[in-house]
């Protein structure tokens, strides 16, 4: 297997696909890079899920990962906080540099990584505990010493949920609506004071009003956090994100589907003047 990863085929791939990635043509150049991903390949046992992806994530921006089903965008997202470690047989190759440190380096503890890089999932997944206990779970397991009441209030305020739940902090999180549960999950993620918040299709299980509230929230949160969001919804990517990475899927001779990054640029550029035909076809709905 490893022979597949020799530089030669990688170069071929790069010429076609990710050239634009290395030089975004417009917009916020100033924001420093906090994730520097080079030559990322992800395998699930023999299955090559993502091939040769290069990506930069900039601080205090929202980066959207879009593309058709099976293009590996969620897989890439799960490399940012080593969630792929939890899947038996998953293997990550290439460099995922976070502030210059390779997250897959030998001295890196996934638990430490996840305390700095929080995650919000596709389906709201509050613990079957009280609202209060959901928020304090992360800080408590990290051994945080401080005023938990203040932390709960501040986290819920930042997640725009405080006014709705301030009188029922001890009631079960499962009694909240889907949209409220998702904002609770966001509050829970930011209660550990992360640097980055990863969101894996955070609105796909929500109605349009709840989706609108989450999107508004995301724009507020990027003042403090760096956000990477995977979305199926192209309008959402266009509405909230600063940069957009478009992934596509190559179907091999035996039907194996491998995702790869096609185009990465400022969101304006990707949606108004994509440099590749493939991107344009997807954006305009001719494919995917």
């Amino acid at each position, binding site marked *: 297997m490893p022979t597949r990863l020799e530089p030669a085929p990688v170069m071929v791939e790069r010429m076609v696909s990710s050239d634009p990635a290395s030089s975004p043509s417009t917009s916020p150049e100033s924001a420093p890079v906090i994730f520097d991903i080079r030559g990322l390949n992800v395998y699930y046992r023999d299955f090559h899920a993502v091939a040769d992806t290069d990506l930069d994530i900039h601080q205090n921006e929202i980066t959207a990962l879009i593309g058709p089903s099976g293009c590996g965008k969620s897989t890439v997202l799960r490399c940012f906080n080593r969630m792929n470690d*939890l899947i038996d047989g998953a293997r990550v190759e290439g460099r995922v540099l976070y502030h210059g440190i390779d997250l897959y380096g030998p001295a890196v503890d996934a638990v430490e990584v*996840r305390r700095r890089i929080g995650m919000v999932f596709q389906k709201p*997944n509050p613990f079957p505990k009280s609202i209060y206990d959901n928020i304090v779970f992360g800080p408590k397991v990290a051994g945080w010493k401080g005023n938990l009441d203040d932390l709960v209030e501040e986290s819920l305020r930042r997640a725009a949920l405080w006014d709705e739940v301030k009188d029922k902090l001890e009631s079960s999180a499962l009694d909240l609506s889907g949209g409220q549960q998702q904002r609770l999950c966001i509050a829970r993620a930011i209660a550990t004071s992360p640097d980055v918040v990863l969101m894996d299709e955070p609105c796909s299980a929500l109605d349009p009003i709840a989706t609108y509230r989450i999107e508004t929230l995301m724009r507020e949160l990027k003042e403090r956090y760096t956000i990477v969001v995977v979305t199926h919804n192209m309008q959402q990517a266009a509405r909230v994100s600063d940069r957009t990475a478009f992934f596509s899927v190559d179907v091999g001779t035996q039907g194996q589907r491998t995702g790869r990054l096609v185009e990465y640029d400022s969101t304006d550029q990707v949606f108004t003047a994509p440099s590749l035909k493939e991107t344009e076809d997807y954006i305009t709905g001719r494919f995917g």
Partner: protein
Amino acid sequence: MQAGRNVLGTSAPLDLSGDPRRLRKERNVRRLFLSAAVFTILVSVAIVLSLVGEAVAFLQSIASEIDEGLGSLMADGWFPRRDRFDLRTIIWHTLSVSIIAMLVATPLGLGAAVYLSEYAKPGVRRVLKPVLEVLAGIPSVVLGYFALRFITPDILRNLWDTTQQSNLMAAGMGVGILIIPLVSSVSEDAMQAVPRALREASYGLGAKKWHTSLRVVFPAALSGIVAALILGLSRAIGETMVVAIAAGATGGSLLQLNPLYGGQTMTGAMASLAIGSDQVAGGVAAFQSLFFVGLLLFLMTLVLNIGSERLVRRFRQRY
């Protein structure tokens, strides 16, 4: 569709009523399975009725034929052939064996369940789970002799040299070993049923494995785990062979508060009346007492099983 033509393309009038022979066959097969189900239910009902009938007969005969009357249910010790039927003695011994069994089975069974569900890699689990279930297949008579020939002389006598040859402690430990697979397998199923999303939420917040296991998975599976413990307890109360061999006291026993001494449990008392030189036959109060104790046991395990059933159902509804 063309007029006058049915699905087979012939012009015969359309008949969807079905082949009568096939319909008759279906009916007969249905009756066959129904009769199996009805037979099973009838047997269960017959057992319960015979238990109740003999139990009532027992109460009537001690009330009318024995000098002490119903007071013999609170006599000094359980000696059925001498008309002393102190229920407190055998109920206490049953509880004491069951408590010891749970003290053994709870930590080991739950520990094994957490390991299998949360820590073991899939390959390890594929090997270990069947091995644990093999333990469930060990005949209880084997565990009885294990308790008598190993636990008592090699463990208990080394700790407390006053331990009797037959004693409640060894029986309780034997029963505990017997129910470990039941406890671990049912509670592991409960932990496996906790949605993966909750584990991911926990890991995503930077929780370590043991935090995730003990603070997220374990509480979420709690009602299933409690159900597993109740099932284990009801099995421990009903277990006969291990206590008959290891707890000893043929013929009867006095109330024994110290588990290092021998004593008869409810099941042990029933077994000893049914075998060997203590064997009793129909008609006499000692024989009928078997059914009275049996009915009590049946009611105890019934209540426990209904309780655990409810807990399991509540657990299923949560997600």
